[in-house]
């Protein structure tokens, strides 16, 4: 008997029994006590074990650590050592646990008969059937009619799949990723002859112009970029970086920008060219060679500010100013290529942006080709159209679909779904019953990334590992293993080509091939270290720079200098441009089945569990539309009915719809919710790369006369100057006017109290939240849901104000204009020293600890809700019902904190379970907790490190230093509640 099987037995018994105990707060305790068979190295009951792995929720490839208790994963966090994410993790990454434990996962393989009924089968039978199919095809010499269609895969898996197909005589391995970086690669090829995705040095930049790149949300590597942006945008030494966001709809990234250029959709290219024109003609940029300068002048001749202004609807002065600012910046950076800005001229736009970067000398400075990022390569629309064609013609006999959902993602105009019905045998490896799997003949459910082996290269010099953090939740098999087993069963040369027993073995061998030479005999140690660390990466950038330094001396190609910049076309005669943007929660739709992502409000609109169409208030007034009116949006390709949301951040001639909802299938949380606006897209692609164009059609808007209420979590969109989410003008900081010292205010307050202040023993836990760094992404909210067993209540309950989140991002639209003032402030329990909630509790269910925490003893609570009423911050939530965690989502529950019963008030306690654990460790070593040793889930997850936690009694701690900063303030300070949280106002360039 193998060790893994013991672990599995244990899981079945002890793990589940433990959970039963964790779920029923105050109910009959567990009756049985199941020991392990043999002592496990990894599992100690009551002690958490951490595994490093790689997040696979999007192609960014952030490093992640998984906390497991009693053999089940309970929390994922950013891996602080990982060079891509550097400790943060986004909202989607946090929700990967709900992919793992999704109750609507396909629990075991099934066959679908001709009638459409499914029949569960065992793995042996399933693999045998696949083998038979392949065997028959091979016999008939039709191995090339096997197609493997997958999403972005880990490196080793990708190679294995290619090798496997090759052994069968096919080379038809298509990678389809809904959001593709192909135009960037192509533009770089065209401009510089370098087909690579460079690294963008956002952190060091001081001026960024982003042409629709939503780099804080979904663009390429949002977690890393957010961290960089916070650094770039932080006030230091009298300065802060400036971000100018160019987009027709103010995105979350735009809301964090200093300036918003509300550009006419599809004309970003012209703006970039117009800026380049000014820079070149006025010689504002770097000195160019004579020939280059001449060619550029010729190329840009027709993009004088006036003509560009009329195309883009951006005033000529603004263009001129932007050009000057950009050229004058010591480290400027122009970004482009966001999904929403991807139109027919996507590549051309990026070429124009490349020119802009080039003429100001940014290549090699803020844009570096020496450490390229991993690109999400994707088959373009044309190759998919070819596949469709080939499927229609019967040239595909066996289609294997792995971790991608083309039926949902592709524009219906392409006809993929219809063609799929003509394929005699479709196998889906999807873990979830998605739209594509619904049409498959057989499902061989893959494990989720948290359960399997793999590797991933998010950037050059970064090789991340994935390892199973726990045993499979369902009877699923890793597709890598399935491919290997089927190959073995096929026998003959095919089997010989695959000597590995398992994908794990294959992976390790590949690593040995890659690194064996450099590490020599110590490979096993190297491998263990890599697993512990989460992969290998080059920590010394100097060597990498030296190695590829040449890559930065790129010159413009002749192709670039003779490039023809064609404007983007828009299909349809509608009145409005259609602006589709990827949701920060659902990404391309894959996040829609994670209840947390549905439940956590969209950062901009604060809408939950829905789709909406954003229209400008003026347009709405003109058309007599109010929020919640169900509108019909019609394009030449199709139409959707979706409720209206009035948003001043969208141009009056544009309507915006988020992507990712509108699933017909994909489980209980996703199915039937909202609309999939991809149906509005005619199958139009980028001219150069044939990447699907998202911004390519105009639509007609009409009222249906019906209503569909949107559920928003924001009560008021204005902060009303109540001292909750404050800003401070940059000028106030730079002019040297020393305002009131924060320390003085605190002292005054101490005197104002009727009673002496609390004494704290050893610790007073506090937090500093830097609103300049907070982007409003909501990662902290998801982390809190995961850490603290917060239930998901659904749309109806949220409509009633029963959102259970312990931390929320309050979003206030103070001003939506060219200098947008959109405020995001995380609101959580302020752990007040003069807590208004505490004295009103009749039963001491909430009281103050000697460490300054506002404790809530769940089992003591009788549920008067007085504390919640008296909490000025409204950060206490009540259990209105006995909330359910549908199996197996309950396995995710954190055993360190009780699951609250109905009728009980609950709240944030700065993750007291973590504080307890940290103090436990410290006590073992006879010391106090060190600064940074304990971090609440929200602080840990924050991609920008906006939340800093620590001991306020330790004057050296980061939180103490931040809390003492000038201009720091307490929310609703005039109430004198003496919160432990100090907010640092958002520095605003006014």
């Amino acid at each position, binding site marked *: 008997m193998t060790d893994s099987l013991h672990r599995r037995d244990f899981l079945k018994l002890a793990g589940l029994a433990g959970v039963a105990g964790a779920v029923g707060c105050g109910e009959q305790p567990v009756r049985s006590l199941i020991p392990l068979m043999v002592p496990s190295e990894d599992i100690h009951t009551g002690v958490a074990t951490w595994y490093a792995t790689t997040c696979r929720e999007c192609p960014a490839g952030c490093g992640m650590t998984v906390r497991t208790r009693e053999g089940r994963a309970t929390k994922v966090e950013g891996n602080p050592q990982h060079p891509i994410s550097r400790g943060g993790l986004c909202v989607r990454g946090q929700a990967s646990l709900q992919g793992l434990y999704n109750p609507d996962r396909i629990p075991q393989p099934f066959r679908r008969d001709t009638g459409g009924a499914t029949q569960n089968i065992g793995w042996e039978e399933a693999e045998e059937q696949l083998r038979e199919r392949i065997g028959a095809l091979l016999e008939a010499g039709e191995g090339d009619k096997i197609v493997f269609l997958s999403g972005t895969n880990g490196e080793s898996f990708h190679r294995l799949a290619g090798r496997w197909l090759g052994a069968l005589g096919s080379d038809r391995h298509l990678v389809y990723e809904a959001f593709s970086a192909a135009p960037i690669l192509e533009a770089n090829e065209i401009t510089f002859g370098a087909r690579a995705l460079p690294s963008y040095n956002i952190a060091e930049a001081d001026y960024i112009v982003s042409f629709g790149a939503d780099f804080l949300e979904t663009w390429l590597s949002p977690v890393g970029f957010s961290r960089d942006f916070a650094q770039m945008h932080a006030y230091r030494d009298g300065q802060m970086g400036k971000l100018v966001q160019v987009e027709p709809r103010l995105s979350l990234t735009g809301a964090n920008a200093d300036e918003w250029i509300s550009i006419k959709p599809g004309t970003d290219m012209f703006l970039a060219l117009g800026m380049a024109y000014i820079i070149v003609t006025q010689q504002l940029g770097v000195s160019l060679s004579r020939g280059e300068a001449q060619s550029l002048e010729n190329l840009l001749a027709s993009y004088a500010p006036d003509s560009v202004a009329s195309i883009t609807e951006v005033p000529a002065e603004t263009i001129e100013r932007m050009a000057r600012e950009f050229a004058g910046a010591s480290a400027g950076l122009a970004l482009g290529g966001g999904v929403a800005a991807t139109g027919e001229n996507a590549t051309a736009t990026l070429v124009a942006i490349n020119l802009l970067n080039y003429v100001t000398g940014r290549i090699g400075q803020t844009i570096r080709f020496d450490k390229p990022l991993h690109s999400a390569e994707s088959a373009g629309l044309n190759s998919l159209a070819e596949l469709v064609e080939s499927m229609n013609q019967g040239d595909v006999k066996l289609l294997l679909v792995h971790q991608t959902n083309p039926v949902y993602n592709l524009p219906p105009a392409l006809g993929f779904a219809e063609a799929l019905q003509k394929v005699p045998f479709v196998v889906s490896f999807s873990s979830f019953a998605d739209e594509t799997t619904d049409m498959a003949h057989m499902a061989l459910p893959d494990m989720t990334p948290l359960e399997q082996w793999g590797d991933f290269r998010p950037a050059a010099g970064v090789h991340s590992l994935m390892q199973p953090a726990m045993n499979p939740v369902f009877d699923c098999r890793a597709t890598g293993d399935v491919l290997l087993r089927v190959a073995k069963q096929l026998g003959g040369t095919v089997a010989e080509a695959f000597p590995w027993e398992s994908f794990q073995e294959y992976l390790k061998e590949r690593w040995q091939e890659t690194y064996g030479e450099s590490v020599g005999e110590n490979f096993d140690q190297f491998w263990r270290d890599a697993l512990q660390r989460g992969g290998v990466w080059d920590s010394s950038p100097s060597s990498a720079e030296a190695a590829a330094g040449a890559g930065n001396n790129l010159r413009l190609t002749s192709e670039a200098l003779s490039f023809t910049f064609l404007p983007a076309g828009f299909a349809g005669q509608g009145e409005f441009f259609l602006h589709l943007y990827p949701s920060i929660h659902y990404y391309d739709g894959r996040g829609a089945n994670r209840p947390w992502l549905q439940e956590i409000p969209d950062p901009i609109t604060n809408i939950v569990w829905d789709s909406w169409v954003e229209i400008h208030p003026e347009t709405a007034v003109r058309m007599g539309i109010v929020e919640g009116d169900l509108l019909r949006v019609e394009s030449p390709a199709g139409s959707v009915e979706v409720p209206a949301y009035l948003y001043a951040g969208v141009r009056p001639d544009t309507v915006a719809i988020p992507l990712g909802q509108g699933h017909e299938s994909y489980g209980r949380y996703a199915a039937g919710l909202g609309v999939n606006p991809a149906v509005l897209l005619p199958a139009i692609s980028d001219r150069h790369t044939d990447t699907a164009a998202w911004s390519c059609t105009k639509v007609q808007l009409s009222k249906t006369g019906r209503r569909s209420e949107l559920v928003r*979590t*924001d*009560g*008021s969109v*204005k*902060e*009303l*100057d*109540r001292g*909750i989410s404050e800003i401070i003008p940059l000028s106030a900081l730079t002019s040297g006017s020393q305002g009131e010292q924060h320390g003085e205010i605190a002292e005054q307050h101490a005197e104002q109290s009727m009673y002496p202040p609390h004494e704290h023993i050893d610790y007073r836990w506090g937090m500093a939240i830097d609103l300049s760094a907070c982007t409003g992404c909501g990662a902290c909210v998801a982390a809190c849901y995961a850490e603290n067993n917060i239930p998901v209540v659904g749309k109806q*309950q949220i409509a*009633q*104000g*029963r*959102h259970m989140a312990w931390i*929320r991002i*309050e*979003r*206030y639209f103070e001003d939506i204009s060219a200098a947008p003032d959109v405020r995001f402030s995380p*609101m959580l329990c302020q752990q007040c020293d003069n807590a*208004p909630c505490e*004295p*009103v*509790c*009749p*039963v*001491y269910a909430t009281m103050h600890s000697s460490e300054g925490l506002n404790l809530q003893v769940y089992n*003591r*609570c*009788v*549920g*008067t*809700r*007085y504390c*919640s*009423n*008296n909490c*000025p*911050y*409204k950060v*206490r*939530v*009540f*259990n*209105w*019902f*006995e909330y359910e965690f549908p199996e197996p989502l309950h396995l995710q529950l954190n055993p360190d904190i009780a699951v609250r*019963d*109905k*009728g*009980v*008030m609950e709240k944030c306690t700065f993750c007291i379970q973590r504080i307890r654990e940290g103090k436990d460790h410290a006590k073992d070593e006879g010391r106090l907790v060190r600064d940074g040793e304990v971090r609440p889930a929200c602080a840990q997850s924050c991609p920008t490190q906006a939340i800093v936690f620590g001991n306020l009694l330790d004057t050296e701690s980061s939180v103490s230093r931040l809390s003492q900063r000038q201009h720091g303030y307490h929310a*609703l300070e005039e*109430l004198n509640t003496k919160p432990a949280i100090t907010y640092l106002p958002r520095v605003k360039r006014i």
Partner: protein
Amino acid sequence: MNATSQQPVSFTQITDDILAPMWKPSRGYLLLLFAALSLAVVGGLCWLHQINTGMGVAGISRPAGWGIYIAAFVFWVGIAHSGTLISAILYLFHVPWRAAISRTAEAMTIFAVMTAGLFPLIHIGRPWLFYWLIPYPNERQLWVNFRSPLIWDVFAVGTYFTISLVFWYVGMIPDLAAIRDRSTGLKRNIYGLFALGWRGSGNQWRHYKAAYLLFAALATPLVISVHSVVSWDFAMGIVPGWHSTIFAPYFVAGAIFSGLAMVCTLVIPLRRAFHLEKYITLNHFNQLSKLLLFTSLIVTYAYITEFFTAWYTGNPIERDSFYYRAFGDYQTLFWIMTVCNCIAPLVLFFRKMRQNLKVLFVLSLLINVGMYLERFIIIPVSLTHGFIPNVWGLYTPSLYEIGILAGSFGFFFFFFLLFIKFLPVLPIFEIKEGFQPHPAKQIQEAAS
């Protein structure tokens, strides 16, 4: 006795008149009783469902953690106040017309406190743990938090109920003895038991009078303290719209106002059904109306003061909260309340109206509605519009909540209906005392 001249009525007649309607239920009465019971049962079932499923079946949420349950609690406690006012405060002030309505008012107090007492239980999330609010030695070694106004409530309402019950009961002992002496069999035994063997001996009367005066003296500060404590549930909170120094007197006045209205609501039909015109005269209503008008004016004054301070302090949060109260989502309720509590009672400036029972009855209903709305506007509406604009929300009571609220009326009227059939609705001996051609009193009255 009061100034209006009355035909002398013999003591026997008084006893007969008051005891006549007892124990003979008419069909209408039974129907009413059944209706009240049914309503109470419906409310009870709603409550059961709520206990079973969770507080979520009610419409309360965040930010309005308190809704119509707490509004109902305050409403019923308020109703309770006029009973004690009439029996204790007016007694201390020797107000001659109090006797005729005191028993009914006191009974109303008892049942209203009982009803009110249900609401904290209904409203807490885990009602099965209500006893944690009571300080008693327990294995957890935990006591209650005496700093919480809710614990003050436990003590204030508990004391109020106990003292009111004692007061009511002691006041009834001579009457119970009278009933005992007029009945036979089981009835005699039961009334006899409760009459405690009262004989009306001089010695008994002597202590009785002394004790009654003392009860009245104790009940007077108590009644003021109880509604003050109830008002502090809110005033001790920092919620804009709650945190106000005038709450205690304002709530006491409001409580008496609503309680007097409820007395009118109960006594006007009762007088007619039980043919008590001889004992409850138009003059009684005239006096009651004056009190109603007076308390209405106090309440109006309090409303104006609240708005004035909110406006003139210039505190933007306070201002916003009060602006919202008058012109926000709940403005309709606010203006209905203003009409009911401040404008409609102004008709009582006219003596004719004060003695027009139809007008008075309708007005008393309006005031009941208005005072309920007042509590609704103060409690959940203030909560919906607190400090943090991001969590502003709306509160709409659910059907279950309304069911329970309706049930509370059923509960109250069920007990009240039982009371009018089983106990004397007027204090017999006090009425007799009033009709007694008393030399000492006559001299006193002549002098004044």
